[in-house]
């Protein structure tokens, strides 16, 4: 293993982590503000990817595809919030789990109905394709670098939104005392719709950007959703900072574990056995990380006190 490969994998881990952050941020906001666990967040990721693939196929423009992804997932989020989700705020978590599981079924099979079972492909546009040479002579795909940049700037934007804007103040107030801010004349149900649509748009954007690296297909959202849950468990529910730290930790652990564990096992095992054992263990690494955090801090790294 060369240092170059290692740095490349660190960048891959960052890119993966940044994508997870976009998913986890919406989930953690929705949970923090509305107290809702949303399994269908992965479906919104899928909606973004399909919208982007469809629009890119029709118009040929990648930027238009991204805009479509944002718009479609935000709209899907708003519609779902208005019709189903808002009936669930006062329900227990079991009802929320089931209703959003039902939404997954509807979204997944509905999409299969519309687009068929074959995966779609979203091409990286010319102006973002090809490698760039980084300082130190590392060649790295420009598109993945762009994802990291977009993700980090969205993270910065979110921190600014929460800390500085009027919407952010209302979101933070909604986390601590919803009756109070309702009494102060804030239209709480509109606030909820906006927060939900915002989270949906972030998920849709993530889906569209990842769609250009992987294939766009039904069921692509749920594995990412579950990883985003791991991120939230590690970072602490409701904390955007926790989501960012957790996402980068999970992204780097997963990518580097897949690289380093088989190498480590080669030190005392046969090569083929080491690769098998190493990669099997690497597939569990982030969950082991989650278990360790749980034992150490059951409320996550940035979660509130019990």
């Amino acid at each position, binding site marked *: 293993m060369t240092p170059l490969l290692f740095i490349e994998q660190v960048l891959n881990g960052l890119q993966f982590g940044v994508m997870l952050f976009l998913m986890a941020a919406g989930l953690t906001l929705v*949970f923090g503000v509305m107290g809702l*666990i949303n399994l269908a967040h992965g479906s919104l990721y899928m909606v973004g990817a399909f919208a982007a693939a469809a629009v890119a196929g029709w118009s040929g423009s990648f930027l238009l595809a991204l805009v479509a992804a944002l718009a479609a997932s935000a709209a899907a989020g708003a519609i779902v919030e208005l019709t*189903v989700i808002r*009936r669930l705020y006062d329900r227990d*978590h*079991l*009802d929320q*789990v*089931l*209703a959003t*599981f*039902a*939404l*997954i*079924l*509807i979204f*997944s*099979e*509905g999409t*299969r*109905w519309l687009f068929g079972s074959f995966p779609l492909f979203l091409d990286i546009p010319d102006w973002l394709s090809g490698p760039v040479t980084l300082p130190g002579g590392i060649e790295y795909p420009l598109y993945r670098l762009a994802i990291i940049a977009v993700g980090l700037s969205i993270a910065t934007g979110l921190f600014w939104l929460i800390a500085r804007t009027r919407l952010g103040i209302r979101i933070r107030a909604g986390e601590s005392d919803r009756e109070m801010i309702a009494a102060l004349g804030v239209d709480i149900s509109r606030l909820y719709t906006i927060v939900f649509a915002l989270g949906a748009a972030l998920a849709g954007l993530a889906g569209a950007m990842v769609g250009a690296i992987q294939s766009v297909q039904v069921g692509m959202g*749920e*594995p990412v959703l*579950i990883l985003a*849950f*791991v991120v*939230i*468990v590690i970072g602490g*529910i409701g904390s955007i900072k926790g989501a960012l730290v957790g996402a980068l930790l999970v992204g780097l652990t997963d990518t580097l574990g897949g690289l380093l564990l088989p190498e480590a096992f080669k030190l005392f095992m046969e090569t083929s056995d080491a690769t*098998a054992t190493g*990669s*099997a263990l*690497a*597939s*569990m690494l982030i*969950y082991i990380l*989650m*278990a360790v955090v*749980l*034992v150490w801090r*059951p*409320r996550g790294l940035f979660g509130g006190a019990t």
Partner: protein
Amino acid sequence: MSRERMVNAALMALLLGVPLWAWATDEPFTITLATRVAILALAGVGLNIALGLGGLVSLGHAAFFGIGGYAMGILASHAQSYTPLMESPFLLEGTKSMPVIWLVAILASALAALVIGALSLRTSGVYFIMITLAFGQMLYFFSISWPAYGGEDGLSIYLRNGFPGLNTLDPIQFFALCFGCLAAALWFNARLVRSPFGLALNAARQSPERVETVGLGTFRLRLVAFVISGAITGLAGALFADLNRFVSPGMFSWQMSGEIMVFVILGGVGRLYGPVAGAALFITLEHVLGGISPFWHVWLGFLLLLVVLFARGGVIGLLAGRRVAHD
């Protein structure tokens, strides 16, 4: 006899009567469907102990279903290839005997439930849901990337495993075995609900503070419930694998966890026979709607949404009315 009891008796009579009729009219496919219902209901009975009685919303019960399945797959595959599981420090052979496989499936899934439960129960509420889901996914990925037992492709078993005194290749006899397991689990569950443990666990769901105040530990109560729950679902996994003579990572998937939960909810949470009603409805819908449209999950989704939003008692609630406290 209360109305719920009559509904329960009718359900079991139906589950027993349909395959018997199918046997008489030589419709083996219907018997297989009924066997699926019995097995999936058994998995639901397991989950219902954690979910209905303990209030533990586990979205990772596929972990135990899958472990039960792989317990069967691993033991039987070694037996059919005449290779031992291990030779040192002692010789361990595979087996084609159901009782042994069941015991291993129960013990292995109970052990997994002990570890997963001990970690997950450090938290509660939405954390618990996400963590159980994540541990299920962990085993899913592990089963895919561990090449020794088929990896992504899973394991096929040529011949169904045997049970002393029965011909398990005969669909109706295998159904009888599965039905027997389900009946035993339901009987055990009924005893558990009435037992001191069940009383304490049920109270811990409603008012954990109270349970601690009388000197009982809620963590220990819940952990024991989770282990029992996992063990029963594990047994169902072993039977399910035997029904299909096939086990694959799909048994560990989050969809499987979701479906087991759907059986429980469609039937009615906390109702003893809820999982039976739920699994029967699910398989019937799959069979009927699946014949009309390949996208029947959309309709299942809408149905589930309606049940959650408007009919929280599930099938049993609809038929038997509101729950009345016993005694």
